[in-house]
Each structure stands twice: as structure tokens, then as C-alpha cells.
């Protein structure tokens, strides 16, 4: 089996344009189009959040689908489980809106749909080849790759920088 892909964030790339949030909300709307999503009820919600890290730096914060997912173990309704692809999923039908997952998520990335009284979170866009947020990022701050592939490309970038002369 091929290694599952994850969403990685290149911290130095984010321009805080919030395009990922917008694309995420649209990808999780009924109409699948910004023009219809904007007036949909219940309001489509983004599942990742662009926040600042340093005064001059912003970063999209996205569900890590933790290996030892606190939300999954804390859920009192059995609504959160891990898919074969490694995606931690919230089953909206089972969710009772007790917000225990919100209380234990160390990243603060579980949202509450107040109209529906359901928790929601990144599902890595199961129907898309690449998650909508990754596609939407104009600076490729979001990368969808396997952990191995990502660390390999990070190493290559670093070594290219060194070879370029500054680092050596």
C-alpha cells in the first residue's frame, strides 16, 4: 500500500490571503460553487484557519489527523474514527454536539456548526484528488504529500540552498 498523503504547511509561504479557508468552505457546500455557497443555509464552513504565528507571519492551521487523535478517544458518541487512509473522520449522524472533541483538540481546529449542532473538521476532501485548500493556495504554502515524500523534498530544498553557496 502506498503511504497516505497528508497536508503539510510551509510556514514561510503563507500570505494570509485566506483563499484556503474560502476554498474549503466551498468544497464543503452543497452547490460546490462560491456563487451558490455564499447564500447557502446552513452556511458552509471552512475547516482550516489562517492565523498568525509571528507578527509578520501567518499560517494556515489544519487538522493534523493526529496519530493518537485525542478527539477520537474522547468522543463520547463513537462519532470519530480513523479511515483506512489515516483520516480522522467525524460522522455527523453520530455526533451529538457535546463538544468534547473541541475541548481536547490541541490544535483548536474542530469547528462547531451551530445551526446543525454538529462538530466538523477537516476531512481531507475525500472526493478530490487533492484537498481544496491545497489547490487554492496561490503560494503553495500547503503541500499534499506523503510524509516521506515531503521530508525528502524538504531535504532537497535545503541541500540546494547549501549548494547555492550561502549555507556551505
Amino acid at each position: 500500500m502506498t503511504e497516505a498523503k497528508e497536508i503539510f504547511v510551509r510556514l514561510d509561504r503563507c500570505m494570509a490571503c485566506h483563499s484556503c479557508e474560502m476554498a474549503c468552505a466551498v468544497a464543503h457546500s452543497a452547490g460546490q460553487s462560491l456563487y451558490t455557497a455564499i447564500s447557502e443555509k446552513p452556511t458552509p464552513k471552512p475547516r482550516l484557519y489562517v492565523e498568525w504565528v509571528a507578527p509578520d507571519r501567518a499560517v494556515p492551521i489544519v487538522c493534523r489527523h493526529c496519530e493518537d487523535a485525542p478527539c477520537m478517544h474522547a468522543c463520547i458518541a463513537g462519532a470519530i474514527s480513523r479511515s483506512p487512509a489515516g483520516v480522522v473522520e467525524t460522522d455527523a449522524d453520530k455526533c451529538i454536539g457535546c463538544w468534547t472533541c473541541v475541548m481536547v483538540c490541541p490544535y483548536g481546529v474542530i469547528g462547531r456548526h451551530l445551526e446543525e449542532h454538529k462538530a466538523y473538521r477537516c476531512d481531507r476532501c475525500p472526493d478530490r484528488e487533492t484537498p481544496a485548500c491545497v489547490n487554492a493556495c496561490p503560494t503553495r504554502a500547503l503541500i499534499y504529500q506523503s510524509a516521506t515524500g515531503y521530508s525528502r523534498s524538504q531535504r532537497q530544498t535545503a541541500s540546494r540552498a547549501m549548494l547555492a553557496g550561502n549555507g556551505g
Partner: protein
Amino acid sequence: MTQSKETTEKSLDPAIQQMIAKAGAQNITTIWDRYAAMTPQCGFGDTGLCCRHCLQGPCRIDPFGEGPKVGICGASADVMVARGLDRAIAAGTAAHSGHAKHLAHTLKKMAQGKAEAYSIKEPGKLRAVAARLGINTEGRQDQEITLDVANAALADFHEKDTPVLWAATVVNPERVKILSKLNLVPKGIDHEVSEIMHRTLYGVDADPVNLLLGGLRCGVADLAGCYMGTDLADILFGIPQPTFSAANLGTLKAGAVNIALHGHNPVLSEVLVSATRLKEEDAKKAGASGINLVGICCTGNEIMMRHGIPSCTHSVSQEMALVTGAVDAMVVDYQCIMPSVVNVAECVGTQIITTMDIAKISGATHVEFSEEAALTKAFEIIDLAIEQFKRRRHKPVEIPAIVTPVVAGFSVEAIVAALAKLDAEQPLRPLIDNIKSGNIRGVCLFAGCNNVKVPQDKNFLQMAKILLKENVLVLATGCGAGALMRHGFMNPANVEALCGDGLKAVLTAIGQANNLGGPLPPVLHMGSCVDNSRAVALTVAVAEYLGVDTQQLPVVASAAEAVSEKAVSIGVYAVAAGLPTHVGVMLPVLGSPLVTEILTDKVKDLTGGYFIVDLDPESAAEKLLAAIDERRRGLGLAC
């Protein structure tokens, strides 16, 4: 050759499809590549919820309600969207009226004897325009009148005691009353543009309704700019008359010096047309069969309708003309010239020649045009093209063998003249009788551009097909006209296939009365984008004839594939004139439900016009038909 689905999703024009494939094979980056690289586009901008009007910004309002609901200054989504729209209207107005101002200056220089390449081609129109403006024409020389008209035109730009004459005198009295009541009569064209910039500044107007009313007034100023542009161009270069021409890339000739005239203002292109006749020999000496002028975009419309010069392509596909490898020079003035033409030109060897001080492009050759030295400059430009031909002549070119016959040049004067053959006393009567009888169900004007977000020409073609079958008289300007002409909609031979029986009968009757040997073309070409004024003039004439207001007429408009802010301002003046106006791409207003509602509904209570935003051409056509029928019912006409 078979076209991939990928190509047909970009353009419905087979010539363009062929060139897209060629560009792909040669690794030439095109607008479709850049669009793909740009998608998905920023949703904040797309919905009008991004504001950069002050240095505290940029501000974004989250349409999904999770993030900020107001800007840093407190501006709501409604205010942000209304401000943004206003600035687009102002930009469009500035462009059309800039074009008109350029003509006014040319007219004035000509009258002062400083621009000898220009002359009064249409003294009749000069006097008609002067009379409309209240300028005395009795016993005066053309030159004197010209000076007064030019000065009146220039005076219309700044704020003065009288309203903008090119607005107040061009619509029916009832419309003037309505516009005056709403305070929508502009005080000066530049003044309105400037006032929009002021009121949309940080901390000025924060009432969305008030902002939109300001935008409407600026839109009326845009009508003035367009109308003035048409009037002055007709005076200087002649009133367009129906003329045979051709369209599409097949109008390029491998063996000739191909010069593509691209942009808008006939001030430049007219001189190049004259100069070309004098340079044929030079071209032949260089080994060419001659000089082949072709038009692109609205310059193409201007020279087609006055000289029958073919249009090579339009709008979104402007780069594709260069991809043929056969264009030796692309001569541009301003508006709608994609800077990317320079990059394509670099790949294929075309000379991109910019001519205007306000519109230079890095990498292009700049020949500063001046009306005073117009012919000299034109020769200089043609020489550059001939030089390029010499370098290009033995290299292979690929010109798609696609040419569509076109009958173009239906100015209001030409239409009235054609109708006069049916009823010399009351030329508009045959038209109106046919509207009353239902032979003509209504009138639709197609205007605007080709937008990369739409497969090129798709919206125009699908909508025009439906409307023609439903006996709607279709007029077209700008690149909307370009789209329809390239697909045979301006070829009289296609009336049989395209038009409903009623419309067919009318077009045939007029054609026969004018000894054209056949009907008028299915779609009447009215000119460039400033010439949307011609459509307004025709609407106003019909309204006056009937003694009703323009908002009662079964006349609608559509910018089915709009791109430019000019299309926004045109749409606004169409609405101000009382027309249901379709836009086939999304306006950046959805972020404000209030603004959206005003534009598509509430404004109807004020001007009678309103926007129909619908991205689906078939349902858009149905909506336009419904709007036509609603108005027919209003006039007591059968549907």
C-alpha cells in the same frame, strides 16, 4: 483537424482552437495557461469582499461569517462591495471618455489647422450634433462649428453650470426627468469619475445605497463619453454604412505585410488606413503582395464598418493572431491590449508597436503618435512592419483557412436610411409596426468582451441562437459583435438557418427594399464598444417616436462574456437607460446581499432597468425573453 475537449473548453472558434493547439505544441504561454495557473481565484475578490482603499488594509470580510464581518474602518460588506463596484464604473467611464476626449482634442486641432491628416468627413453629422448641443450653425463655416463642438465636448468633462450635454441631450425628455429626479444627471464626466474616487476613499461615503446612486450617475457620464466618442468619430471619419467584409484568422495573408490594428480609437487606425494606401509599393518592393490590414477588438470594428477592413480576431484570442506567425506588426493604442502579446510576439517575431503615451508595454517598440504628425508616424509604423516582413517572409506560417463573410456597419443613420426605403416619411414606422405585430418580438443588444472564464463565444452564440429563433432583433457591438461575426451571425446567407419566421421576413423586406439581393444579416453590427451609444440612440428614437419612455420598450442588453470595467460602466448606463441588462459572468457583488438585490431588483423601481446575472446562457436567454414579454405586455402588445 480534430480538436480535443480541452481546446473546445477554451474557445468555440475553430481557428482559435487550431492556434491553441499550435501554441501548446510550441510551448507558447497563452491566456488560458495563465488562467489555469491563477485558478482557483481568490474568493474575497470574486465576491467583492476585499478592500484595498486605505493603507490599513487589505481588509477582507468573510462571507461565511466565521471571520471579520466588517473592515478595519467598520465598513460593512455592503459598503465594501458598493465602493468596489463604484470604482469599476469610474474606471470604465474614464476609459470611454478618455477615448472621446482624445477625439475632441483631435477635432479641435483639426479645426485649428494643426492636424492636417484629419478632416470633416461628415458635415451633416457635425451640424446635427451642433444643433443638438444648441450651437448655432446658421451661416457658419464647418471649421467654426467644429471648434465650438470640440470646445463643448471638452467642456463636458469638468463640472460646470450646465449638465453634461452629451448626457442631457441624448436621451428622451421623459428619461431626463427620471434621471434628474434621482439626481443622476452628471455635472461633468471627469467630475463624476473624480467624485467616485472621492466618495469611495477611506472614511467618506458609507451608505451602500448612496454609493450605488453615485455609481449610477457615473454610469450616465459613461454614456456621455461613449456617445461623444461615436459622434466625434463619425464627424471625423464618416458615418458607418453597411459594408461587406470578412472575419477570422483566415483574413491574414501569408505573402502580405500583415498589420493588425488593435485597440480602440480610430484617431490612430484611420490614419494608418490612409497611410497604407501610400505604402503599398514599399511593401511590394520588399517582396510582399501588398499590405494587409486587419483589425483586432474595437479598432477592428471601427475600421471594418468604415472601410470594410476584415477583423482578424477579438478579445480573449488576441494572442492567437500572433501565434499564426503571420502578423508582422500589431499596432496598438489603448484598452484591452494584454501585455502578454509582447511575450507571444517574442516567440513568433511580431513587432508590437505601442503608440500612446499612457499605454506603453515593456518589450514593445514605442512610436509616439501625435495628431500633428499623424501621417509621418503612420509611415514609420508601416516601415517597421515591412522590415519585419522581410525577416519573416521565408519562415513557415500557419494561418487557419477560416474566413467568415460579414456585413457590418449598421449605424443608426444607416438603419434609418434602410428603413426609409420602406417608408420615406416615417422611417421608424416599419420597425415599430413589426414590433407591434410581433414579427419582431423585441430587441437585444450584445456587447462586451470574451472572458477567459467562458469558452470563447459560447454565451454569445447560445443566447443569440435562441433569441434569433424567437424573432428578437439582435444588435451587436464590441467583441460581442466580434464573436457573432466570426461564427457567421453577420452573414446574410445564414438568416434562413438562424432566424425565426417573423424576423426573417423583416430582414428580407428591408434587404429587398435596399436592393441588397438578399436579407440584412441576422445580427446587425453597430460598431465598437463606445458605439453602444448607437444602440441607446436607436432605443431613444423608437421611444420618442412612440411617445413612451425607454424603460417601457422591449429592448434588452447582454454583456454575455464581460471582462473590462468598461463593460461594467456600460451595463450601468444600460440600466440607467431603463434596460434589463444581462451579465454572463459574475460581478464581484455577491458578498453583499443588499447590493446584489439592489442591482438585480430594487433599481428597477428607480430607473426601470436592472441587472440579470446568469452564467448559464440558455437560462439567461429565457430571462431576457421573459423581460421582453413583460414589456410587450406593458405596452399592450401580444406576446
